[in-house]
């Protein structure tokens, strides 16, 4: 990778970090795990970076890697062991106040999304929150665009029912 490409890659890391971490949390990771996942994903993308052409495709590619990394984590035994640990154990790693807030926020997200199936959750995270295009979401999840559409609308309907969508009172 030449310097120009590396500079582009570095800029991409800067720009996409926050969304990747947030997406990982929305997929189901806790804040610490989410940062690990984002970092792992970005490192893995480095090799193929210059070959994936265009900002649109790179983005879809990175998110595909992220979703896969998250799924891998969930399957591995390492995760099973970690999930038994109390998230508060990590308080010592970072300034105490920030940590609790982040953990609490992540918890709230997980509770809100608990009513969705895994695949619905993936679609809502990528399409709705990260704001990938329909084509990008389809590419990232390896499903047809029509499936993205239908899963998204079912997911949004489920969230509406559970009142995570309509946080308002009666209009009259």
């Amino acid at each position, binding site marked *: 990778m030449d310097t120009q490409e590396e500079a582009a890659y570095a800029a991409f890391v800067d720009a996409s970090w926050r969304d990747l971490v947030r997406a990982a949390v929305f997929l189901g990771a806790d804040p610490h795990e989410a940062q690990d996942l984002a970092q792992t994903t970005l*490192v893995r993308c480095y090799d193929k970076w210059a070959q994936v052409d*265009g900002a649109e495709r790179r983005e879809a590619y990175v998110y595909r890697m992220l979703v896969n990394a998250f799924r891998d984590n969930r399957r591995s035994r390492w995760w099973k062991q970690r999930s038994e640990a109390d998230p508060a154990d990590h308080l010592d790693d970072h300034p105490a106040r920030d940590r609790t807030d982040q953990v609490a926020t992540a918890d709230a997200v997980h509770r809100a999304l608990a009513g969705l199936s895994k695949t619905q959750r993936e679609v809502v995270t990528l399409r709705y929150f990260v704001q990938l295009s329909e084509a990008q979401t389809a590419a990232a999840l390896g499903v047809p665009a029509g499936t993205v559409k239908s899963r998204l609308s079912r997911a949004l309907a489920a969230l509406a029912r559970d009142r995570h969508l309509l946080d308002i009172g009666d209009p009259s």
Partner: protein
Amino acid sequence: MSDLENLWNDLDAGSPPTAEVLRSARRRRRARRLRPLVAVGAVAALSAAFVAGGQLTRPTSDDGPVVGGTTPVTDLAPVAFHADLQPADSCGDLLATYRQRALGLVGPYGWDGQMSPYLHRLYPAAELADNARAPAPTTAQQGMADAGFGVQRRTASGTGTNTQEAAVDEPDTVKTDGSLLVRLRGSQLVAYDVTGEHVKRLSTLPVDGVREGELLLDGEPGSERVLVIGADPTSPRDPMTGERRGSRVLSVDLSDPTEPAITDEVTYSARVEAARQTGAAGEGVVRLVLDSGLPDLDFTHPHRGVTTKQAAERNRRAVRRSTLADWLPTYNAGNAGNARGGRADLLDCDTVAVPQREVPLDTTTVVTFATADPAAPRAFGLAGDTTISYQSADALFLASSGGGGGGCFGCPMIDTIRPVSGGTTYLFEFDLTDDQAVSVASGEVEGTIRDRWSMDYSGHELRVLVRPSSETARTNSIVLFHRRDDRLVETGRLDGVGHRFEEVRSVRWQRNLALVVTYRQVDPLYVIDLRGKNPSIHSELTLPGYSGFLQPLGRFRLVGVGEGPRPKADGGGWGAQLGLFGVHDLSEVKPLDTIHYARNTYPQAESDPRALTWLPEHRTVVTLIRHGDTGYLSIDELADQRLQHRMLEVEHGSDVAAVRVIGLPDGKVALVTGEDVRFLRLD
């Protein structure tokens, strides 16, 4: 999704560990080089899908510009400015610039490197959204001069049309001056007397030379004149859009409405994109914005005996052989029956300004003429697609929007929330005099604007509602501009109007505030304070569904017409809705009453502001609601905090769009339906 949205926004990721990522990545690559190639297979296969063209298509023409590339994603710098519009040094130079820009756009099938100027015409906003209901164009209005921080009443223009600006009239299929009412139905111009107890038809005049026409009305009662403006049915069609390339303006003398007469007929070789009228009664000045479109050159396409490469080369040759006659518009002004002149050039080489390369290629012409003399137009042009035009009482703004250098040929034209990449909107300001428009300033802003409703000019300040392009922050923004010498300079900005992934549904500009409705599943109605250096969100009201069109009734009341979920008690589902809001206290807009229409109803005002009429003397709002093939008038009278509501079935089929309700003097109300005009009793 308001709480989940907030959670998303609240999640902090810390600062990106870029250096560490780079170190790990380099280390990993060095380590992997030593492993057998087989281990890399999985990643290679994964990325191959993205490299080889998987589900994200790219332009295949080797003549078209490549989208994407290796430009890093950077923080968005706001507006930069560029030099004024300048004409070319000579006709030769002007032609050279057209040819040169065109060479980059032509491929084996003709014009296929640039789709962006056609994007909003081929796929009007209603078809562009996925997952959302048919969205409405943004609608906006200018408040009256002197208000403080408050909502001002908006009613129709002097000729009965709901316009964007109070002092600038717009065409419609029905026009009135209070005693004479004229309507255009197909190829017939029908005049009525609306002064008596009943509506009286006076005359019918065939106007075959114009298709899809609309009217402008000028003159004192007793000496009225109507301009019929529309497409020229004898002109060729643009193969890209299917529309007629030419247009026609007919002038009809109605001083004796029982004997109307066509007095002028002016034909243009370009399409009328916008028409507006200003000036006192009898002294009206009309301004047209014409769009030439890319010319039909002698293009070929690949076929037996002609390869793709050969076709592309032949087409390039056709471009190199093009002349100014291909690019610049002409007109023909003749009296009906006696041709007063033949075809003449509408523009000279020194009245065409050449903007920057990035403005999509086209020719836009601004034509000015007095309503009394449409055969003597004055015109200037721009060698670019700047056909989004907004006119206030004193200034005209032209904008080219968001196409950038090439658009994305073959990409799904679907995503309104993340539009075509390379989006920069170029803005040009013109001062208006009675017979001309003078270029005074230009500027640009990152992002796209959807249409004229996204702009507003008040107190020497230009306000623009900008939608995200792929290069910018992904929210809508309101940007303020002031003129400094010949530049439009950004002087203030509000980002984050609406949460991510929310689309702006309607905008209402007032002197000191803007009302903005964005939508995903719920409808936040934002009151935006425009008084400070930067606009700011003054308050926010969230309701289910959305308002696609806002009508300020006065200082205390606002009506929003749109769609939303119906109450479970009424059977649930989705349909049109009309909401009454209390806006006396703008820090807390109050929903007062809501009318839920039947399932699967659609509010016509969402796509046509002329489908709603506010009749202040009756304290009544009348708006058209569609249900399948049938059109109903919803007639709603304000009774303090609630609406007294009734429905009236009025039309069917294609005539539904023709329905108009117009307030007349003495409290009379004219109801125009497909077939006729009658008075509507509101008690």
